[in-house]
């Protein structure tokens, strides 16, 4: 079943025996056994009973609250593992340690290589596109990464590589009525940015869940600096997945005309753009489908779903920090 998304405003989330039961205007709109759920995301205004919260903790199901536009609000994280040894290895590596530099390079290299891969694929498919400048810039960022000796320089290359990729992003959009200029957030003011932001919020819920299962402290990251209440490690580990999951889903939604301009609404004054309810459902379905898609994991040499690969990457990270493996291999797609 995977993650359950509750999008109905004013829904009431309760439990009946060992089932999650969601009601709207006194009618049941969803009823699923808790053992089938591995995450719950509540979008917008809904209420949840204390007994349900207790049961989610009991079943170790993480709960994330987002606004109806996908902005992150809060998260309830059941305690998963008391692995103090992993946490201590995680803390020991903080700052500018060899390990922090190694894994930060890994996260960024994974992301940039996956960016490059999607540009290359698009270039092969649509010969009329001109993506070569972006590809060259990405390649030079990837090459320079190998020499980087500080977290700051890694961040700089990450910024340069991302800028190169997003300068090409508009060309990846194959339909007339959507456009992408630059990445904007808080709030996103065009449909493409609003989808990207929403997708990254959903991805964060999933990656943070995986990190927690493995026993990490999600608030101590390497590439993303600590800031109170920011799950830096989740943001770190998300990097390599952004292009593979979110960007791919956003482009598919637009290019396959699953989402059309009328699926979006623009708020007056702020110009914040978000999905209509109908549009949101379509997008969530696509995202969910993507997570269940299987692929051959390049290190494990076995089929996994993307959902499972979040945990695989988190375990590889743990093994590297614990000294069980000699390098952290980010997920690099072919």
């Amino acid at each position, binding site marked *: 079943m995977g993650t359950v998304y509750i999008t109905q405003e004013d829904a009431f989330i309760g439990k009946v025996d060992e089932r999650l039961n969601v009601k709207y205007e006194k009618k049941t709109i969803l009823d699923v056994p808790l053992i089938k759920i591995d995450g719950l995301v509540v979008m917008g205004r809904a209420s949840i009973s204390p007994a349900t919260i207790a049961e989610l903790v009991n079943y170790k199901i993480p709960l994330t609250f987002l606004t109806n536009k996908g902005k992150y609000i809060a998260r309830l994280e059941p305690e998963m*593992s*008391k692995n103090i*040894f992993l946490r201590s290895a995680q803390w020991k590596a903080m700052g500018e340690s060899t390990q922090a530099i190694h894994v930060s390079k890994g996260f960024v290299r994974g992301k940039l290589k996956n960016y490059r891969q999607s540009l290359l694929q698009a270039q092969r498919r649509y010969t009329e596109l001109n993506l070569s400048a972006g590809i060259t810039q990405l390649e030079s960022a990837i090459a320079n990464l190998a020499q980087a000796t500080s977290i700051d320089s890694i961040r700089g290359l990450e910024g340069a590589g991302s800028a190169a990729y997003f300068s090409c992003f508009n060309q990846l959009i194959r339909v007339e009525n959507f456009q992408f200029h630059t990445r904007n957030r808080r709030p996103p003011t065009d449909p493409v940015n609003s989808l990207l932001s929403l997708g990254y919020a959903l991805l964060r819920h999933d990656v943070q869940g995986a990190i927690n299962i493995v026993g990490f402290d999600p608030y101590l990251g390497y590439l993303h600096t600590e800031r109170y209440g920011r799950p830096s490690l989740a943001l770190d580990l998300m990097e390599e997945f952004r292009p593979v999951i979110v960007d791919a889903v956003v482009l598919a939604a637009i290019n396959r005309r699953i989402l059309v301009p009328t699926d979006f609404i623009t708020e007056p004054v702020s110009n914040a753009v978000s999905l209509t309810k109908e549009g949101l459902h379509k997008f969530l379905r696509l995202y969910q489908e993507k997570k269940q898609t299987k692929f051959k994991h*390049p290190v494990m040499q076995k089929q996994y779903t993307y959902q499972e690969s979040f945990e695989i990457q988190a*375990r590889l990270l743990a093994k590297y920090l*614990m000294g*069980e*493996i000699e390098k952290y*291999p980010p997920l690099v797609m072919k």
Partner: protein
Amino acid sequence: MNNTEYIPIAALNQYAYCPHRCWRMFCAEEFIDNQYTIEGTSLHERVHTLGDSNREDTWQIRAIYLKSEKYQLIGKSDLIELENSEWYPIEYKQGLKGEWDNDELQVCAQALCLEEMTGKSVTTGYIYYAHSHQRQLVEISEELRQSAIATIKSVQNLLETGIMPTATYSKRCQGCSFYNQCLPQVAEKVRRYQEDI
């Protein structure tokens, strides 16, 4: 961990099966139920309903604490029998006789506790296999005692230092509930892996 902490008897069995597994369960406190452990638990719940009863001339006591100061051991017995003033520890196991001999260590550790608690020597114990309803005799031989004592020392060391034993792939991994967390073959896979440029 200091010297006043006791070693759970169950940890010996796990250590003998795989030191890394023992570390995950007792140091990292990762415990993930799978089908086997859940079945195992419910069997133990049944056995552990506290009480005593008489079976012919045998006095049976269920679910009491066993403890040894000498070996710093603590655990709960499934069943203890007293017959002709001889004590026998009996350990319940789900399923058939395992391929590995670690269950015998657990019986031996219980015997060590019983000896200290009763002041009498214990020469025999049993493993009861629920699946086949069969009791298997365990002779508390000198050899078994030595191997139990050596395992106690290793576990004590593990619990004190928390140093993680390496996960080494073996046939046992196939039946191990930690396989998906432990990924014992991954080190080799990472070593061989060549990232695309």
